[in-house]
């Protein structure tokens, strides 16, 4: 039996230090700490995320899904007038396991009223800088920002519109990335592979990079903005080197569009052979009542802890990771 923790005492202390620093930061910036349910009757419809599901024997075997993010209930709080809120919680995602992934991990999620994604990026940088002061980092904490379009262009030399799957295949081959995709795979999957294997590895090491304004097809829960002929999603991601740390949105607050996106994703799940899951009708009802203009972000605390402690495997920071949980 492997009963011992995977994280050593220093790493357990580091997590406690991180959590304290995060709470101090939000105490000082007037955001309310909230708790929302871990189990929900609805699931995420995101075709790339698989929820854990549990059956309730005392309720006719009805399903409950473990949260993959606290986003929906937190938005319901916002719609009910909570004001700025934050939450530290454990989220669960099936099949995500590796050097940077554990199927359950700790997320910090927060929302700011009247912020757009750029103002929230300012705050993410401020929070990360503040929290990291509690640790002895050898590298200075520096941030830069680049749009998704320009990040792709910088590495490939191409505008987004010029890239079809054949072009991407060509670029991947030039970077000696073996490609498991075919012409039948959605173009976004090709972009995902390009991002993970070529673009993100080109980001400056020991440096924070924000990527913002994603293609509309990768909007997730962000609102769209049309400028001239191109429409972008007001979404951002934060990377440290090539390690992805956070994902944020200028939040979509159109109930009808949200319901359309849920239904579209449900359709994609069926086409791709994933489990059919119910979407959150409560969120749609809340959006109908009105979500104040806001931006929100989810930041992986285990990943932040990796760079704060200079650890290259997430398992070393988790008391009992999946292989001994």
């Amino acid at each position, binding site marked *: 039996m492997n009963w011992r923790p995977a994280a050593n005492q220093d790493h357990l202390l580091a997590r406690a230090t991180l959590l304290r620093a995060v709470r101090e930061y939000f105490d000082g910036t007037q955001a309310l700490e909230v708790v929302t349910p871990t189990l929900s009757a609805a699931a995420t419809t995101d075709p790339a995320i698989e929820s854990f599901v549990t059956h309730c024997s005392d309720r006719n075997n009805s399903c409950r899904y473990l949260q993959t993010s606290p986003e929906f209930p937190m938005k319901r709080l916002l719609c009910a007038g909570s004001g700025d809120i934050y939450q530290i919680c454990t989220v669960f995602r099936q099949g995500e396991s590796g050097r940077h992934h554990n199927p359950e991990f700790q997320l910090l999620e927060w929302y700011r009223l009247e912020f757009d994604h750029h103002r929230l990026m300012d705050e993410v940088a401020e929070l990360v800088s503040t929290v990291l002061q509690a640790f002895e980092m050898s590298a200075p904490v520096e941030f830069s920002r680049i749009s998704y379009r320009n990040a792709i262009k910088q590495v490939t030399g191409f505008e987004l519109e010029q890239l079809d799957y054949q072009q991407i295949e060509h670029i991947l081959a030039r970077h000696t990335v*073996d490609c498991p995709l075919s012409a039948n795979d959605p173009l*976004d999957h090709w972009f995902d592979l390009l991002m993970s294997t070529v673009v993100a590895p080109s980001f400056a090491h020991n440096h924070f990079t924000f990527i913002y304004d994603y293609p509309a097809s990768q909007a997730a829960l962000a609102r769209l903005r049309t400028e001239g002929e191109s429409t972008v999603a007001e979404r951002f991601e934060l990377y440290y080197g090539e390690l992805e740390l956070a994902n944020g949105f200028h939040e979509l607050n159109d109930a009808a569009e949200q319901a359309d996106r849920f239904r579209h994703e449900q359709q994609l799940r069926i086409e791709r052979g994933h489990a059919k899951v119910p979407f959150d009708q409560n969120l749609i009802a809340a959006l109908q009542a009105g979500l104040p203009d806001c931006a929100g972000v989810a930041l992986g605390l285990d990943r932040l802890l990796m760079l704060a402690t200079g650890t290259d495997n997430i398992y070393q920071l988790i008391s009992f990771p999946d292989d001994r949980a």
Partner: protein
Amino acid sequence: MASYSTNEFKSGLKIMLDGDPHAIVENEFVKPGKGQAFSRTRVRNLKTGRVVEKTFKSGESVEAADVMDTSMQYLYTDGEFWHFMDPTTFEQLAAGKEAVGDAHFWLKEQDDCEVTLWNGEPLIVTPPNFVEMKITETDPGLRGDTATGGTKPAHMETGAVVKVPLFIEEGEVIKIDTRSGEYVSRVK
């Protein structure tokens, strides 16, 4: 036919790729933000020993290779084949040059080796990590010289050549680490 999902990938797992058995050396799960996940692996072709990179879509299934590691006793060589015996069933198997490779330098009769079987045929022969062998030829020893750290080549009964300390004599038995081919100690 048995298969593995990429979720089950871990180093050491044996899978079939392009008709050859491969072992996963390294597996890295990558997932950009909210998008499609991939498994980036390095796999070793068990027939050729070549290591290549291979990327899979997360959730994809890959055929399992019917590869099994067994412990067998080395019996003898007839010059073309090396013969091994399963110590429990007494069943005998002959492994050819391709499977034995450089391991033949470290095969001593009656030593227990690891024989990797693919569809029941020997694929790789791995000698024990440490073997004891007799030196058949080396320059005369320098008595008392146990400190200078110099070495000289010594020829083993199997044809292997190992660097040994200067004080070692012809006819002595020494312990060798077969993974590095290095001298470990004298066996008294």
